[in-house]
């Protein structure tokens, strides 16, 4: 049965009761995207289905803390829109300022990727060894951005991630976080680019010696 089979419509009852095998469930969900009256009927019947489960039972007391600390661990790297947005906003502002933003702004969004920087005509790349593995840096004057490719780094350990800083006059400013499977872009600045290992939630200032420190002039 597929989503266009007239018979797929008859799966509405079993779908609501979670009585479908995965393949039929997928077919019905595809059907739902095209069938407004089915969506309406599903929405109308859902509260009645949920009422069949309405037997509240408090979970053990310790579970709350366990769940919240698990949530906190997964917060920063995977879902820190604030930090990423800040980088994107700085990037957009820089692009406007230097007038070289045509490449990025024509993409329809203002999020530049590391691949964009590595693909820039004037990119200069540096493979930098660290005790956690190699980091590849790419700097484009044209884009005024630095790409940090951390995909050759090793796992920093449970609850840890890599944080990128620009350090100048003895003060380090956080510009991005990433995990060992990721790469990030940060705006070009004065001072020294540093990478440290930090708890996933991010730190206000570096809490470990830099794995890598690269003066802007050498990039």
């Amino acid at each position, binding site marked *: 049965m597929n989503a266009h089979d007239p018979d797929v419509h008859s799966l509405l009852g079993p779908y609501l009761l979670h009585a479908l095998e995965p393949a039929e469930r997928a077919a019905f969900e595809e059907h739902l995207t095209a069938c407004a009256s089915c969506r309406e009927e599903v929405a109308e019947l859902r509260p009645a289905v949920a009422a069949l489960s*309405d037997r509240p039972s408090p*979970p053990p007391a310790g579970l709350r803390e366990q769940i*919240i600390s698990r949530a906190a661990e997964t917060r920063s790297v995977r879902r820190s829109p604030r930090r990423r947005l800040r980088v994107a906003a700085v990037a957009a502002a820089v692009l406007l300022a230097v007038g070289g933003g045509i490449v990025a702004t024509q993409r329809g969004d203002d999020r530049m990727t590391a691949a964009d920087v590595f693909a820039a005509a004037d990119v200069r790349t540096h493979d930098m060894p660290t005790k956690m593995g190699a980091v590849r840096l790419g700097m484009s004057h044209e884009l005024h951005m630095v790409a940090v490719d951390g995909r050759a780094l090793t796992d920093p350990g449970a609850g840890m991630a890599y944080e990128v800083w620009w350090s100048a006059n003895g003060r380090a400013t956080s510009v991005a976080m990433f995990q060992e499977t990721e790469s990030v872009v940060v705006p070009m600045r004065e001072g020294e680019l540093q990478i440290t290992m930090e708890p996933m939630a991010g730190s206000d200032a570096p809490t470990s010696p830099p794995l890598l420190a690269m003066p802007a002039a050498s990039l």
Partner: protein
Amino acid sequence: MPRRGLLRSVPPVHAQPQQLMAAIAAGDLDAFGELYDRFASAVHGAALQVLRDPARAEEVTQEVFLEAWRGAAQYRSERGGLRTWLVLIAHRRAIDVVRSVEASRAREERAARRELHEVPGPEADLVTAAEWADVRHCLEGLTPLQLESVTLAYYDGFTYPEIAAHMGRPLSTIKTRMRDGLARLRDCLEEA
């Protein structure tokens, strides 16, 4: 980094589900705690009702809330209230667990031990006793075929072809009884 703790002595209260979920989508752990406080009993109860195993119900409860944490941005209020949304995620996960760990024969035996009109689950506490009485009353208003199709699927985790085979009925009959059974249940609950 947002400062936590002392500077925020009064926790925010998000009256609207959209507000609460938007705060959670933005990474607000206090809002996530609020979601947990409001719905943990409902989620845990839904899982326990199907699984009847405290350790597994606890695991499912944790998975449901972490899924809500990661997927908060996908929540749409027009698809139903938060309670309905969370309870149905819990139910579906519990059914997946039952199907993977409990052989079909064991589920058949457990279903056979149950009286036709008996609905499994933890003892109702006083707060919800009245509401549950409505659900029970409405279940009793279904035809025997509707009732068995709905409960074998929902409480025992059988798929509709398994139920058709078990009851010796055509697939189309079971699918139809599930759907009109739910419609009758909805009408009855709305009157209650």
